[in-house]
């Protein structure tokens, strides 16, 4: 599986690897990549989801401008890619050793209390972050479409909460992370800084109870986020909400001899 280049030397031994050798070779290359087994992702429609597309954007910008300075990223992002990855991402990327996107793992909306019936939940599995990586920045990203019908000239207040504690008999305790005023006609990705929350989740995984969002109209009515144009799980794949985290290696690791 490891192919020699165009130049074949006369004294170079060429032979096909035996199955066992091929397996060993694969193991060695996985080890170089810092993995102890070959990942087995479950990708039904996941390939065209917003998170992989966002990451592919970052990858392409990285390989085009390999090891260049932030200014070059800046021009690249402002001229060719205004949609998915932002200027902030370019700057984070420049200082990162690793970037990881997380898909929303909530599959069905839970029955929340009447007061919170319009709240939407999001959960992200942070359990597979490689050891020795420290989060330097993290964002929750949700797409907003233009609202043209019911709330045409309305403004909305979008609130993002961290779920702090869940109770069996009453609503969960929430911690307000951020609020944003939105125009009905606004369209594009909304980014929320969740760096502190993500670090907390990594340090104590049992406290990772996810995020909730709520939307209020200017007159104080709670509405379904979908009515305000916020894309949820039933929306287009390339507009699905997701989380992205930027990492820096916190410790020098040496591979152990096997």
């Amino acid at each position, binding site marked *: 599986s490891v192919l020699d280049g165009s130049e074949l030397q006369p004294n170079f031994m060429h032979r096909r690897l035996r199955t066992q050798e091929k397996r060993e070779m694969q193991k060695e290359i996985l080890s170089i*990549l810092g993995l102890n087994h070959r990942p087995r992702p479950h*990708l039904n429609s996941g390939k065209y989801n917003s998170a992989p597309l966002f990451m592919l954007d970052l990858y392409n910008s990285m390989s085009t401008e390999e*090891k260049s300075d932030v200014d070059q990223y800046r021009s690249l992002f402002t001229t060719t890619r205004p949609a998915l990855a932002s200027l902030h991402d370019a700057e984070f990327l420049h200082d990162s050793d690793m970037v990881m996107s997380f898909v929303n793992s909530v599959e069905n909306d839970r029955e929340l209390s009447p007061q919170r019936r319009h709240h939407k939940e999001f959960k992200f599995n942070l359990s597979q972050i490689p050891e020795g990586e420290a989060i330097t920045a993290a964002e929750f990203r949700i797409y907003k479409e233009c609202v043209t019908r019911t709330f045409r000239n309305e403004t909305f207040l979008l609130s993002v909460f961290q779920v702090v504690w869940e109770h069996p008999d009453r609503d969960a305790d929430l911690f307000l992370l951020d609020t944003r005023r939105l125009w009905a006609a606004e369209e594009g990705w909304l980014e929320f800084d969740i760096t502190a929350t993500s670090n907390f989740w990594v340090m104590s995984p049992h406290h990772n109870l996810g995020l909730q969002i709520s939307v209020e109209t200017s007159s104080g009515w709670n509405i379904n986020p979908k009515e305000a144009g916020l894309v949820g799980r039933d929306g287009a794949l390339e507009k699905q909400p997701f989380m992205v985290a930027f990492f820096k290696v916190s410790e020098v690791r040496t591979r152990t001899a096997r």
Partner: protein
Amino acid sequence: SVGRRRQPNRNRSNSPQEASKGSTHTADYNSSDQKTACRKHELYVSFRELGWQDWIIAPEGYAANYCDGECSFPLNAHMNATNHAIVQTLVHLMNPENVPKPCCAPTKLHAISVLYYDDNSNVILKKYKNMVVRACGCH
């Protein structure tokens, strides 16, 4: 055995500089010949050939390359030889049985970025340092 292996190339050592060296010992070390000298060779690691396209999104593979060749006297023919490699060569000349020649190894390594899925279908973009040999030299 090194001398015997290079016999076909001996015809090429007709330059006045090499002809004047005379001794068979010197001829053994005179391997500035481009075919055996330490240099970079192409080697492509193909993730596609490994059947990993289902989890590695990009790249399809990477040109890892490797270094191979001899680091023999005179080392100034090797542009990337370290200063100490020259000393190592001289000591090897004096005591060839016990002291090895300098090694042909990478002098310039570059990073690559790999984009892949984990088991939870999350996507990871990771920079891996020292993955691609850009230049080789004698150490």
